């Protein structure tokens, strides 16, 4: 990638801060992000497309008389215009600002986010990985319709603030995705898997992605009656991550300060099952959310959100911390940087064996359309299997799940000792999930 983070770019952004001050801003920040991406799509046995993308985004945020204006543009030569527009917004229609100044530079924890190996990943190699995934899944059934692909991203960012922060960082990432469909009459089985990481290490495992889809197809061969009523559910790590979505909304300091989170006033209370310890770890090397500093210049920190089910804290960005009269936690948008669920003690295979009758939820359709802030969910089981006497006996159809995530995660939750490829999520068994069928 041709770097734009030169001394002259830094000088140009700092000049933008001065221009903001001259126009009456009491505080300002400028954030520049430059990204270079290679991507490849593979469909039905052939390369569908290969491409490159280079984008640049420059955002100015200014404070004037307690109002905040934000403006964005994508040409370095437009920095003055971007600043002027932000000032005009702050003067006439600015959002309420709950802080007076951007923080001064502080000690940060260095985090590895840039990998030379990932950077060297070529379009040819991504095409080859896609071809390999396609071939592997095809070995299970030549009649499968397969789409797959991958990408490699390199990005660089520069943040300058009137607080004195001048911080730049680089990041690399790859992703691989695989989708397979089998159709018999009007019956379809759809499944997909994807991985994304910063380092080109053992996580870049084409075989593992393909094997997971083959396992899904094998398990889906037989159609069985779904269980009904309130059942035990087995959640693989990516499904568990989706079940935590309500918690992510609930621990947002913004939602707490605006009175919308059901967790407000509940710090110190037993909210979840004692087996659940959940951490925000922005310092895990090469995790997609890894970072030393947030976009306001606040250092990030490793922090426990739920300890043995007890709510520990909420997440605050700079503005929301001012609103809630607390300290910022280094979380842009008041969302976790990198959520980590501490593992349990049993292997996932044993968890599965422990279920007499239940539902293995591999994929959901429409999750998150209910009142998720409240914890309510209702979703179609896009791909799910029935478990009987500890064994997967076949695929279920026309099955919906419903319940309240806070209630479900407060009951008996058992976690596996083994984690997914990111090292962040175990497998889980939950109890009392309402299942309705046609």
């Amino acid at each position, binding site marked *: 990638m041709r770097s734009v983070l030169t001394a002259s770019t830094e000088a140009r952004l700092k000049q933008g801060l001065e221009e903001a001050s001259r126009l009456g801003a009491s505080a300002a920040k400028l954030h520049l992000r430059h990204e270079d991406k290679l991507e490849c799509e593979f469909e*039905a046995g*052939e*390369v*569908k*497309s*290969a*491409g*490159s*993308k*280079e984008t640049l985004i420059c955002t100015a945020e200014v404070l004037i008389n307690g109002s905040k*204006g*934000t*403006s*964005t*543009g*994508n*040409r370095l030569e*437009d920095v003055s*215009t971007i600043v002027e*527009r*932000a000032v*005009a*917004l*702050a003067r*006439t*229609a*600015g*959002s*309420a600002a709950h802080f007076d100044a951007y923080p001064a530079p502080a000690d940060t924890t260095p985090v590895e986010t840039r990998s030379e190996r990932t950077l060297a990943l070529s379009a*040819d190699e991504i*095409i080859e990985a896609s071809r390999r995934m396609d071939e592997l899944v095809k070995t299970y059934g030549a009649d499968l*319709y397969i789409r797959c692909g991958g990408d490699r991203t390199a990005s660089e960012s520069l943040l300058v603030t009137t607080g004195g922060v001048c911080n730049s960082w680089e990041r690399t990432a790859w992703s691989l995705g695989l989708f397979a*469909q089998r*159709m018999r009459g*009007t019956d*379809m089985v*759809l499944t997909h898997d994807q991985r994304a990481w910063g380092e080109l290490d053992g996580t870049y495992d084409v075989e593992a992605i393909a094997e997971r889809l083959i396992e899904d197809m094998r398990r889906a061969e037989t159609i069985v009656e779904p269980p009904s009523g309130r059942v035990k559910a087995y959640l693989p790590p990516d499904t568990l991550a989706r079940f935590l979505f309500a918690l992510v909304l609930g621990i947002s300091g913004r939602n707490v300060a*605006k*009175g*919308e989170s*059901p967790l407000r006033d509940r710090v110190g209370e037993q909210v979840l099952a004692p087996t659940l310890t959940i951490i925000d770890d922005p310092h895990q090397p090469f995790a997609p959310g890894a970072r030393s500093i947030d976009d306001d210049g606040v250092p990030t920190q490793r922090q426990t959100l739920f300890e043995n089910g007890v709510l520990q804290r909420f997440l605050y960005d700079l503005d929301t911390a001012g609103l809630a009269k607390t300290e910022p936690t280094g979380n842009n948008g008041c969302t976790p940087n990198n959520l980590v669920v501490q593992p349990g003690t049993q292997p996932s295979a044993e968890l599965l064996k422990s279920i007499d009758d239940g539902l293995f939820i591999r*994929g959901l*359709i*429409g999750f998150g*359309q*209910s009142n998720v*802030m409240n914890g*309510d969910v*209702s*979703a*179609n089981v*896009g791909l799910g299997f029935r478990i009987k006497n500890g064994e997967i006996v076949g695929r279920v159809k*026309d099955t*919906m*799940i*419903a*319940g309240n995530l806070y209630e479900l995660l407060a009951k008996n939750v058992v976690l596996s000792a083994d984690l997914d490829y990111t090292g962040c999520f175990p497998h889980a068994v939950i109890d009392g999930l*309402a299942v*309705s069928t*046609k």
Partner: protein
Amino acid sequence: MRDRLLEALKKSTADYAEIRVEFTDNTALTYRGPEIDRAESSSCCGGIVRACTKGGWGTAAFDSVDDLGRQVEEACRCAALAGRSTTELAQVEPVDAERPARLERDFRGVGLDEKVRLMGSYNDIILGAGPAIETSYVAYVDSFRRVHFASTRGAYYMEERPQVGCYLVATARDGALVQRAHFSTGSPTTYGIVVGLEEKAREVAERAQALLKAPQPEGGPHTVILNPKMAGLFTHEAFGHLSEADFIHKNPKLRELMAIGREMGPANLNIIDDGTLSDRVGGHSFDDEGTPTRKTYLIKKGRLAGHLHSIETAARMGAQPTGNARAVRRTDPPIVRMTNTYIDSGNMPVDELFAGVDRGIYACDGVGGQTAFEMFTFSASYGHRIENGQKGELLRDVILTGNVFETLKSIDAIANDLTIPEGLGGCGKESQAPLPVSFGAPHVRIRNVVIGGK
């Protein structure tokens, strides 16, 4: 710009190449509770070159429009990497046109202070509507896109694509129970669309509070009447996406399932996608491959009548391009998308539709949906019980799910009150979102629809 694009395309070594450059200005103002929560503007330019060689596509997306020739070369290099078969792209008469925006009331001429004052007045109505109102979300958005397109076939157009709209959301709380009610509207032609919505603000505030006391429906199969917004969402989500030929053309099994002529529903069922509706946000003169938009029957008299095509899918399936290749961001390649999609009017008065239901559910104003080919799940903003043909008690958390083929066949009555609501759309596909689309329908009655519930 015309000459710059056509000049740059001379560097193409591909079988086909096109270049699209966009200039976009956006404004977003958001109230959340009593304060303005977000005030943002953006002004960006950039584009994408797409080239096709031996059937493989190469793309080069960029923000800098300084060296378009280099981007053409990069896209052609990528296409050569991808192509292994033959290029098959349908012919379209090359356009040469300029389509400036025709705005009845131009939002660019309205001051930020006026936009804030207007949204603030709706916000005050919601927040002052009652003790159970906990918070509000009132957002104003506008966008002005100028799109320049040229291809190696000699086509060129410039089209301006404005849109303006707003969202009104009321949140009410009773203990741990939180309920929301929504209204949104949008227009490609006038700022007037966001003016005079005081009554809508009152309605959402009242409904959010009423939903706190509303029960959830019992899970399981029900007879359901969908109102036009909800039926429109069903049409878009459950069926419309299946009509997008990029899903179908390389998938022999799906091609068979979606074969033209296949019986899909009752004989009075007609489903249409119409990109020429210029007063709805899904309407444009041309798609992002330079094909003029048009009206396409997807289902006619209950039988599958057409698919939505790009120039590639049309060639591969022996059909005509339909003007449905659309891109969301300036750096996105066009993919097959819907425009304005609706179920055409039937002939039954709405009262008769209700009269035919002893016990059922009236599902209103869809708020979201998701499909996985045949399976769909989507949520109503609210619902009512139907008892002895009468609309009854208010219901919350009405979520419908099912198999689209079975559900279309279970349609047993279509009313005569077609409505295509004005809105901003917001369709998502393959990481391209939010696409401006609209959808609508008359009231539609469907038997045996699975409703989620505890």
